């Protein structure tokens, strides 16, 4: 599959499916860092990362609403939906890698790259040699080394595409079944207000939430609602100080923020099935975790395909997933002194495949 600039509704569907994949791809790295902290420590860092992770879940749901609104089929179970970490982001940026790692200054540094602000109108694409680790599609079949510079630019292309297609098709663009729209009755208290997408205005509103919460608005560090953009939230952890209104990028002047980089389980980086070849409870737990994560994504897919009420029990699933992740991270890795285990976010199919490989 090749992504090209959005010219047709099918192109738009592809982009929005990539948007789902992109929003999801940030969640395992954020959750891994979050759960790697010792309990009752790092209250500030815990809150900062948790808030961003939850907002990514909102963005995922908004992307599903957008895709449904234009008649697409959200699918979180398609092969390769969950990246094998470390990886490049699905929108094609390839100058940095994203992984599932313990909370550390290096991990926060990679989060800053994920959330980096757009550089400006003229830099939507950057020309770089294409990496073999790029998960996804070129931007254009004829321009092999063209990538989006940041998530912001990827969404700017979707915004432009929506606009162009709306001019061609009018309200007929929003032909999706409105019963598939996830509203506040099923998604609440999760990083901001959910927007049902049924027309051009609501589509623009959903897009605004996604792009402003990420990187800030037009170079500012706060968005329209006065919320600090993700990039600057993470930056506070490295600078040891909170931003407050009126601050300039790079110079927070709010209260100090305490980070204890040592109160962290020393978990294996980018855990994968080959780390767990030794039969036993730990391996069983890691496989069970991956399988239940796959079940969870299947449940979300069902929720996004006409059963939004399934999001309510999915919340309980998320708490169980968190609990099992924490248990795994407190267990030492057999044969690797001073290193703890970490969960794998993959799914059922991959568990099957990998069992064959490691057996």
């Amino acid at each position, binding site marked *: 599959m090749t992504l090209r600039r959005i010219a047709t509704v099918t192109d738009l569907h592809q982009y929005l499916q990539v948007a789902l994949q992109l929003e999801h791809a940030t969640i395992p790295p954020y959750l891994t860092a979050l759960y790697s902290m010792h309990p009752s420590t790092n209250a500030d860092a815990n809150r900062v990362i948790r808030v961003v992770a939850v907002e990514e879940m909102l963005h995922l749901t908004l992307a599903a609403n957008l895709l449904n609104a234009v008649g697409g089929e959200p699918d979180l179970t398609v092969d390769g939906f969950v990246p094998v970490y470390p990886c490049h982001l699905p929108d094609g940026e390839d100058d940095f890698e994203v992984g599932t790692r313990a909370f550390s200054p290096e991990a926060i540094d990679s989060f800053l790259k994920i959330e980096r602000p757009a550089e400006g109108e003229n830099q939507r694409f950057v020309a770089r040699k294409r990496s073999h680790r790029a998960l996804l599609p070129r931007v254009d079949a004829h321009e092999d080394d063209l990538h989006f510079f940041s998530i912001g630019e990827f969404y700017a292309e979707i915004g432009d595409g929506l606009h162009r297609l709306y001019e061609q098709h009018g309200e007929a663009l929003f032909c999706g079944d409105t019963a598939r729209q996830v509203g506040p009755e099923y998604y609440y208290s999760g990083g901001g207000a959910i927007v049902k997408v049924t027309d051009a205005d609501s589509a623009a509103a959903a897009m605004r939430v996604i792009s402003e919460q990420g990187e800030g608005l037009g170079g500012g560090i706060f968005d329209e609602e006065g919320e600090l953009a993700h990039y600057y939230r993470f930056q506070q952890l490295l600078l040891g100080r909170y931003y407050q209104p009126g601050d300039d990028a790079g110079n927070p002047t709010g209260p100090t923020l305490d980070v204890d980089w040592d109160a962290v389980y020393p978990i294996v980086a980018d855990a994968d099935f080959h780390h767990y070849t030794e039969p036993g*409870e730990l391996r069983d737990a890691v496989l069970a975790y991956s399988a239940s994560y796959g079940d969870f994504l299947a449940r979300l897919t069902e929720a996004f395909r006409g059963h939004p009420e399934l999001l*309510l029990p999915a*919340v309980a699933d998320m*708490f169980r997933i968190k609990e099992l992740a924490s*248990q795994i991270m407190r267990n*030492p890795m057999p044969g690797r002194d001073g290193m703890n285990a970490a969960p794998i976010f993959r799914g059922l199919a991959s568990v099957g495949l990998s069992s064959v490989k490691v057996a």
Partner: protein
Amino acid sequence: MADDALLARRTDADVQAVFLSLSATLTGYSRFRLLGTGQVEPYLVTTRSAVGDDVFGELLSAFAAVERESADDPAACDRALRALVLSDEKLGPIARNLIKMWFVGTWYELPQEWRDRFAAGEQLATHVVSPASYTEGLLWPTIGANPPGAKGQGFGSWVGPPNIETS
């Protein structure tokens, strides 16, 4: 005394391994689950400071003997545990305290009769080991509930049946 030689001879990792094994046998929860609570180290430190190095060494040695005698036969292990640990006047109350600590996160002061006969120094009073030991109590997964005020399960999750692990 041969028993406290166990502590002297073994590394911290060995001591922790025997303590973990004893805890798994006493609670019926797997080593993975016990490690997953993050409480192995704090409970080991609590027990050791409550009874002193000598008695703690005797407890671990007695359990090591149980494991040797039963050789992975669960029924033999159960018999040996009752004979060598639980019915022992010195070690039994400690083992029962350990079970309670794992399930509710609280160290209970040892019984008066035990203190009169075996206490070497100041007694460790009844206390919750730490805020985490409350939320990590095995009581909660045993009944398929969440510790009230902690580890939320999600709004409305109480309409579903408890999620009790049976394996």
